[in-house]
């Protein structure tokens, strides 16, 4: 046992340890506290040593969990002691006992500042540590400039500077304005050249926070981060003490890669290339080793590299490496790695289109859902939730329902919500949805929030076909001996509305239904009784001709509750009793509930609302937001006030409902529940005002919005004839926003044969195509995302002259939640790069949506790659001599890419690159066969000469036996090389060269120069 150096303190600690029980301990501690308190009272006789000793004792007692409500002043006063030993104790104990919200701390600001700007290095360190650990806004305002000075001072030892870096980080987090962005970015870039790894590590943490809040200002740091990472990954010039089990500081590597994830893209080709080399090395070079610490450290780096690769949207090849790695990880036994595999796979779903590959691992992931470790189960649940779509919803929901019975209580609520959302989003048919929700209520009623059963009621009300089925199911559940109260609620509601649809079935007469429900009444709480009363009233109304016996029974119940102490029950009983005397008028008053307006599922909203609380906003989240806001920028749409467009974990496919959110709030006031008065003076079947609010309240379909986004291809025409009686007037000017960027979606389909062509809150149009020679078959998948049908659906093809396209019949109505397939037969008549357009329109409520979409039936779909040998190539190449069969052009403004990237691009355009044919390694030669009705199969040869010094220009030569084909193919390839599909140019800030940092934003001259 090492000695503490303070005898009194050691004795006290031993005493406490020797106490036999909690009571003795408390007595000993109380005695000591009394002692300390008295000593502090007559401070005069206290030597600094004693004071120090008592303050330590206080901290020890505090750590044991006892309240120490005095002595704060003494601890703070030690900070201003002249000698180190006392000062040190003051600083340490203060930063443990107090936090930034304590008033006492203000007393110390001046002393702390004096220590920071003073000459004593040790005092500087103590002060920086206190501010770094518990400094608040006030500290930020008064100390930030001093701390900044220390960080960049050349006369300070690294010891002080690393503390200053993190202290500044704390101050920046407390008040971002205090770090002066204008000049600071250059300083940050200089700090990244730091030789001392302690300073570099601390500065990198600071950089992460700065870049996360404003990457624009820190572009000049990007190439430096790549350099740091390169140096670490290659283990060049790394001091031994900064390697951990042979790995160059894994922490610095992780932080550096983290900071890189906050830059939206890396455009400088050489920086990008270096980074990809490093990442490739990490991805391929990380082996599993026996030593746990080494293994963890190298995998910490590997997982961060994976995240960075995903962020950078690397080439296909690298992405598939990542997916393969993750696939391996989720199957290993080592729990940490498996956990991280699952977690990162979920993240991957959010950034790229890898759903299909991940689906292959479904069985493996389900195994993890049954793991004994709850941490792993949670990750598996998240992943299953994220990867769920129409194709696997049945399996996944089935698994989740099964898991529900064994899941621990802490997970059941989340699980129920997720099941309900998946069932709603991906139901292949609506009766399945009803089945799932009823099973859910049956299995985990306690964890099923009201929102869930409200939602099923909405669905049933809005879909007539579903009503008899739902009524029958509800009746079956009521037959069970013991059912959850929520089940009583939902089934009586549904039976009240729709049991008359079952009347002819055995056991479903109004009388039987009534007695079945009434049996449950004694078991339910007062919140359910109003629903039952409403149900009785509805049954009464539906019983035609009236059954006197049933009538008497029900009226007797109403009379019984007429004097009930619960106001809600009493009111309903009185009203129903009176209403029942109205005879025929009863039919109108108690008519079936009107359809609910379509709006965002409150469940999905609920899931989105659970937001994580992190120091820096997650890079993925930032990214998805940036993407969404880019999409909005294209359509010139103001983003919803304050609320960032949400794309929550696993909800990538959910329509971005930011508009609806806003309108919920707006219309809450302008659309009182009274809108429904005409139909139903007092909605009888609703249990409480809250529920009323939820079910009938804000009619948030779409709100007022400027209708100037025609440029995006989405136009809305008001259609007064179709207006719903209930629709608010503003709706007629509402617009429908496409989700995602239409141009980017098209560009993706140029390279792939299946994917999403268009999506908005109501419909999703997917395509899948097969191409054979000059024929093609393209299927349009029209998916209605709503619980109400889409009507007046029209699809017209506007084919260019070189294509013959036949579209099979498109149904006029797409039923709720259904997907219809419309095949298109395409024949290519001659070479042309014109594009066919799909003119698509539908009505949803009052809205007519019309979009014109380019169809991915384009030139490269009619070519087939072929490999060609040198013996075949050169004679052909020579025989096609000069224009018009062979055309050459110097193309400038090419998207910079490495040879490898260009090879991949050409290959995915189906131009087969034949390596080794051209003696110059900077050139690419590709061959392919083009098919059309007029040319039949025709060989095309392409040669691209690149300039390693300038990746933005190249010389391209295209040759084929048909002049039109040569020209069209050349132009087509050119278009593909120039476009930047992943980042719209407007949104992508320029990457400055490493040597020239960007001009400060405030300098108008420099800005102007930049523009010119």
């Amino acid at each position, binding site marked *: 046992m*090492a000695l503490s150096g303070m005898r009194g303190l050691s004795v006290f*600690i031993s005493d406490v340890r020797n106490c036999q029980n909690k009571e003795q301990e408390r007595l000993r501690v109380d005695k000591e506290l009394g002692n300390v308190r008295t000593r502090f009272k007559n401070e005069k006789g206290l030597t600094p040593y004693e004071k120090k000793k008592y303050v330590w004792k206080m901290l020890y007692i505090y750590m044991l969990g006892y309240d120490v409500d005095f002595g704060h002043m003494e601890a703070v006063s030690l900070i201003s002691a002249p000698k180190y030993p006392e000062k040190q104790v003051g600083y340490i104990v203060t930063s443990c006992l107090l936090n930034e919200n304590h008033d006492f701390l203000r007393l110390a600001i001046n002393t702390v500042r004096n220590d920071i700007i003073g000459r004593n290095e040790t005092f500087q360190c103590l002060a920086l*540590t206190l501010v770094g650990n518990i400094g608040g806004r006030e500290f930020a305002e008064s100390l930030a400039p001093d701390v900044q000075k220390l960080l960049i001072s050349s006369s300070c030892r690294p010891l002080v500077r690393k503390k200053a870096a*993190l202290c500044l980080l704390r101050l920046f987090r407390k008040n971002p304005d205090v770090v002066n962005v204008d000049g600071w970015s250059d300083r940050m870039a200089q700090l990244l050249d730091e030789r001392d790894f*302690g300073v570099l590590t601390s500065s990198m943490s600071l950089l992460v926070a700065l870049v996360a809040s404003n990457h624009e200002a820190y572009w000049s740091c990007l190439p430096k981060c790549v350099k740091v990472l390169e140096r670490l990954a290659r283990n060049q010039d790394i001091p031994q003490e900064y390697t951990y089990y042979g790995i160059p500081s894994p922490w610095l590597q992780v932080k550096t890669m983290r900071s890189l994830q906050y830059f939206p893209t890396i455009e400088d080709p050489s920086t990008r290339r270096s980074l990809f080399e490093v990442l490739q090395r990490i991805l391929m070079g990380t082996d599993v080793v026996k030593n746990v610490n080494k293994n963890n450290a190298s995998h910490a780096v590997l997982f961060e590299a994976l995240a960075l690769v995903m962020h950078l949207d690397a080439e296909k090849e690298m992405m598939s490496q990542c997916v393969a790695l993750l696939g391996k990880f989720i199957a290993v036994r080592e729990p940490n790695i498996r956990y991280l595999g699952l977690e990162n796979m979920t993240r991957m779903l959010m950034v790229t289109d890898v759903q299909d590959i991940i689906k292959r691992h479904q069985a493996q992931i389900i195994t993890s859902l049954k793991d004994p470790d709850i*941490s792993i189960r949670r990750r598996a649940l998240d992943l299953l939730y994220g990867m769920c779509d129409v194709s696997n919803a049945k399996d996944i929901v089935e698994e989740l329902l099964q898991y529900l019975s064994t899941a621990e209580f802490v997970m059941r609520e989340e699980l129920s919500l997720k099941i309900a959302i998946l069932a709603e989003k991906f139901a292949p048919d609506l009766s399945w949805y009803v089945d799932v929700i009823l099973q859910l209520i049956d299995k985990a009623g306690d964890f099923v929030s009201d929102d869930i059963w409200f939602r099923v009621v909405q669905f049933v009300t809005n879909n007539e076909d579903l009503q008899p089925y739902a009524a029958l199911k509800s009746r079956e559940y009521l037959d069970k001996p013991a059912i959850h109260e929520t089940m009583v609620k939902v089934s009586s509601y549904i039976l009240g509305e729709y049991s008359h649809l079952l009347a002819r079935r055995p056991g479903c007469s109004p009388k039987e239904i009534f007695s079945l429900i009434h049996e449950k009444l004694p078991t339910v709480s007062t919140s359910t009784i109003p629903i039952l009363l409403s149900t009785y009233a509805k049954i009464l109304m539906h019983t035609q001709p009236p059954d006197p016996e049933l009538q008497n029974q029900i009226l007797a119940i109403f009379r019984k509750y007429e004097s009930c102490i619960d106001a809600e029950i009493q009111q309903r009983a009185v009203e129903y009793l009176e209403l029942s005397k109205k005879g025929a008028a009863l039919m109108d008053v108690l008519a079936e509930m009107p359809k609910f307006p379509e709006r965002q599922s409150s469940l999905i909203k609920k899931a989105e609302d659970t937001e994580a609380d992190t120091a820096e906003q997650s890079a993925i989240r930032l990214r998805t937001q940036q993407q969404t806001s880019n999409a909005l920028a294209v359509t010139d749409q103001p983003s919803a006030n304050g609320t960032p467009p949400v794309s929550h974990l696993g909800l990538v496919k959910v329509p971005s409902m930011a508009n609806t959110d806003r309108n919920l709030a707006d219309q809450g006031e302008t659309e009182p529940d009274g809108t429904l008065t005409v139909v139903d003076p007092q909605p009888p079947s609703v249990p409480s005002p809250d529920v009323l609010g939820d079910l009938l309240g804000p009619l948030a379909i779409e709100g007022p919005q400027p209708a100037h986004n025609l440029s995006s291809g989405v136009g809305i025409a008001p259609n007064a004839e179709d207006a719903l009686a209930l629709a608010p007037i503003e709706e007629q000017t509402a617009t429908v926003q496409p989700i995602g960027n239409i141009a980017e979606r098209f560009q993706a389909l140029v390279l792939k044969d299946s994917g999403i062509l268009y999506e908005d809150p109501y419909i999703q149009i997917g395509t899948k195509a097969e191409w054979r020679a000059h024929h093609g078959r393209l299927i349009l998948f029209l998916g209605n995302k709503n619980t109400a049908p889409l009507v007046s659906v029209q699809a017209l093809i506007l084919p260019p002259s070189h294509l013959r396209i036949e579209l099979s019949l498109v149904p006029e109505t797409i039923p709720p939640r259904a997907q219809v397939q419309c095949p298109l037969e395409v024949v290519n008549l001659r070479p042309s790069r014109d594009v066919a357009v799909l003119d698509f329109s539908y009505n949803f409520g009052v809205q007519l949506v019309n979009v014109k979409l380019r169809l991915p039936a384009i030139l490269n779909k009619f070519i087939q790659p072929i490999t060609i040998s040198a013996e075949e190539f050169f004679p052909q190449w020579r025989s096609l001599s000069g224009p018009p069969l062979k055309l050459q052009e110097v193309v400038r403004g090419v998207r910079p890419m490495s040879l490898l990237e260009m090879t991949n691009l050409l290959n995915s355009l189906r131009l087969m690159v034949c390596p080794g044919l051209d003696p110059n390694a900077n050139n690419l030669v590709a061959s392919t066969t083009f098919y059309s009705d007029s040319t039949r199969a025709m060989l095309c040869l392409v040669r691209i000469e690149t300039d390693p010094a300038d990746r933005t220009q190249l010389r391209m030569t295209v040759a084929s036996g048909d002049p039109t084909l040569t020209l069209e193919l050349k132009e087509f390839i050119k278009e593909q090389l120039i476009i930047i599909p992943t980042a719209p140019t407007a949104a992508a800030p320029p990457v400055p060269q490493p040597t020239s940092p960007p001009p400060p934003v405030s300098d108008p001259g420099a800005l102007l120069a930049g523009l010119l």
Partner: protein
Amino acid sequence: MIRFILLQNRQGKTRLAKYYIPLEESEKHKVEYEVHRLVVNRDPKFTNFVEFRTHKVIYRRYAGLFFSLCVDITDNELAYLESIHLFVEILDHFFSNVCELDLVFNFHKVYLILDEFILAGELQETSKRAIIERMGELEKQE
């Protein structure tokens, strides 16, 4: 970022608690109680990560002591897991073969070491040598 660091023994006695976020006393007690309950009964074969409210706790057990770091859900789990081990190595070096009693009787030294290792909820120094040397410098001044 690290929200807090806890060092607790199996019985739940706190041997070190450092908070980088402002918490009220009562909240601290609750956190310490909950984290202890969360980690103490986990099987050694389980992951070293466990969700805690809106964050996650990265923990590791050394003999009867649990070292727990509460970090953001987006943070790199393995990097923090190894920082626990690095901290233990530093303690081990400083106390030459550290045991729980060293930490009990020298809790003030442990706070000092921690302040050289982590600041503002972020790693400050990852060189064992640098930290041990610094501790030597400080001891001379006492």
